């Protein structure tokens, strides 16, 4: 199956006073048609910057995509002109952000903002045509009384409603890929569930659309994603189908994350398991494995040598010396 989007060797660095921050430092990732790919990581892992890099929304300066290729429908997005990438945004790849409060323009009505998206990409679809499509889209994202809502302003709606509007705007052009950057983090649990359900439902309706869901919440990933990529220190540490990842996490970081999750199901643990230490300063990541400083299973090669991303099981990739051929698999365990 040809991937819908292929990220190869993506490096996005931030050039700041305190040095070069390698926010994304060599990311390879495929998004397959029709799948929901979860990109998981803690703050500072580079997950949001990866997403912004796909649509070339990284603020420059201080950020710059220094290396890599992003292939989408036979074109390298990183080599497109600004005019061409602008046509890709929204029409073929859409994005929704965490903060539904600030992602909508407060001085325009909802209808205005949805229709603008249509007119922008199909100048022929003026007036009534755009209006009808906007109405239909608002209905699809579960906005009650779309006629009335069209005339309302963002501040008149609740956070959940606003995020629905954002989804409507993002999906009205039927994009092939939807990038959702922490779409539910700012919302209450009950609303979060609704929004996630809505996204999945819309995906099934508009078949072949893929979703890249960026989140720090592993539980959300478990419930919604088909595959998961775990990021840490600007690199992908583990990629696997969701069941494999949760049943058989290979990377010590993934294992730590899963173990430290507070849960509402299952027996209550007396004490939560923790990952010691804190997320390291992005300016001073270790030269070898980025997780070295906190890893309970580190051994000789870890601090100095960057492990490669290897396919340890079918479709299950991991970046760890425990599982790489020279040190772990044959070296240590044999």
């Amino acid at each position, binding site marked *: 199956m040809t991937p819908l989007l292929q990220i190869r060797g993506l490096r996005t660095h931030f050039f700041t006073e305190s040095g070069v921050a390698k926010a994304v430092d060599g990311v390879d990732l495929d998004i397959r048609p029709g799948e929901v790919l979860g990109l998981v990581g803690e*703050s500072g892992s580079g997950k949001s910057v990866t997403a912004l890099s796909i649509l070339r929304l990284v603020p420059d300066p201080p950020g710059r995509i220094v290396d890599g290729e992003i292939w989408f429908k036979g074109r390298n997005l990183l080599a497109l002109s600004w005019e061409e990438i602008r046509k890709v945004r929204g029409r073929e790849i859409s994005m929704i952000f965490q903060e539904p409060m600030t992602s909508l323009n407060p001085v325009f009505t909802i209808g205005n903002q949805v229709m603008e998206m249509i007119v922008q990409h199909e100048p022929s679809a003026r007036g009534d045509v755009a209006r009808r499509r906007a109405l239909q889209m608002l209905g699809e994202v579960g906005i009650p009384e779309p006629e009335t809502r069209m005339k309302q302003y963002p501040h008149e709606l609740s956070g959940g409603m606003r995020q629905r509007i954002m989804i409507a705007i993002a999906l009205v052009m039927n994009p092939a890929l939807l990038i959702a950057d922490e779409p539910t983090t700012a919302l209450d649990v009950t609303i*979060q569930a609704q929004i996630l359900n809505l996204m999945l439902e819309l995906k099934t309706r508009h078949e072949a659309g893929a979703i890249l869901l960026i989140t720090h919440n592993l*539980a959300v990933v*478990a*419930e919604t994603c088909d595959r998961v990529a775990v990021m840490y220190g600007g690199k992908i540490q583990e990629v696997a189908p969701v069941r494999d990842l949760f049943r058989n996490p290979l990377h010590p970081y993934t294992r*730590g994350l899963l173990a430290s999750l507070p849960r*509402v199901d299952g027996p*209550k643990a007396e004490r939560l398991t*923790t990952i010691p230490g804190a997320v390291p300063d992005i300016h001073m990541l270790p030269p070898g494995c980025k997780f070295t400083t906190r890893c309970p299973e580190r051994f000789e090669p870890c601090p100095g040598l960057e492990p490669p991303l290897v396919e340890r099981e079918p479709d299950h990739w991991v970046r760890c010396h425990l599982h790489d051929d020279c040190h772990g698999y044959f070296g240590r365990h044999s």
Partner: protein
Amino acid sequence: MTTATDTSDVILDLQDLRVRFPVFGGIIPRKTSEVRAVDGVSLTLRRGETVGLVGESGCGKTTVGRAIVNILRKMTYRVDIEGRIVYHHPSGAVDLASLGQRQMRRYRPDLQMVFQDPYSSLNPRMTVGAIVEEPLRIHTRQTKAERRDRVRWLLEKVRLSPEHATRYPHEFSGGQRQRIGIARALATNPKIVIADEPVSALDVSIQAQVINLMQDLQEEFGLSYIFISHDLSVVRHIANRICVMYFGRIVEEGPAEEIYLRPQHPYSKTLLAAVPRPDPDRRR
């Protein structure tokens, strides 16, 4: 097990607490309506116990916490508070809701608070040492050297290095800042700590560290916690009893495991069902 027959170990008792915020409007601003943020909340907290106060944004849980430490009148213009907040001080019960700021000062050391936002809850212009020391300067007559020793001891208790006392908050990560906030709360040997979403702003791998730390400190110092959170999964790990709040009222109250295994109120059920579980077999 936890029946209310023995009232001697009750340390805090909210009786029908009501908080209303006025809404101002009109050309000449005057009160046009009001928001009932807390609408008749009663709950009891026993010594050494943790009560989890759970609900979604706007349900009034934070207001309850702020009412207990009596800072609502100070922070909000013309707030209306009714009901009683009975604190069982060794010298006798006292209704905190009726106290002014001056009378309240006497009880301040006993009731401390840990805040949600590790970035805004520490004064960026003060060193960590000064932040942790401030309650000591106000409530004790310790000398400078005694205070300094106590600050170092407190920082060690929250697993920071005593050398960090000379540093400024912006030099720390979110989890470390939250521990500084905990050290400040512990400085005066409090009896009750109100923790208002103390881990919500933290990374997953850091949340567990802070929760464990809070549990250790509770054991060591015999603290009673009111743990306010929107996250049912976090509360489960620290609370003995849980109160579910909805629109200013407590809709369900019970032992923690009871709520998770057999939620009674429809809202508790909805809330619990909405919590995502890290289990790929339970798909949406």
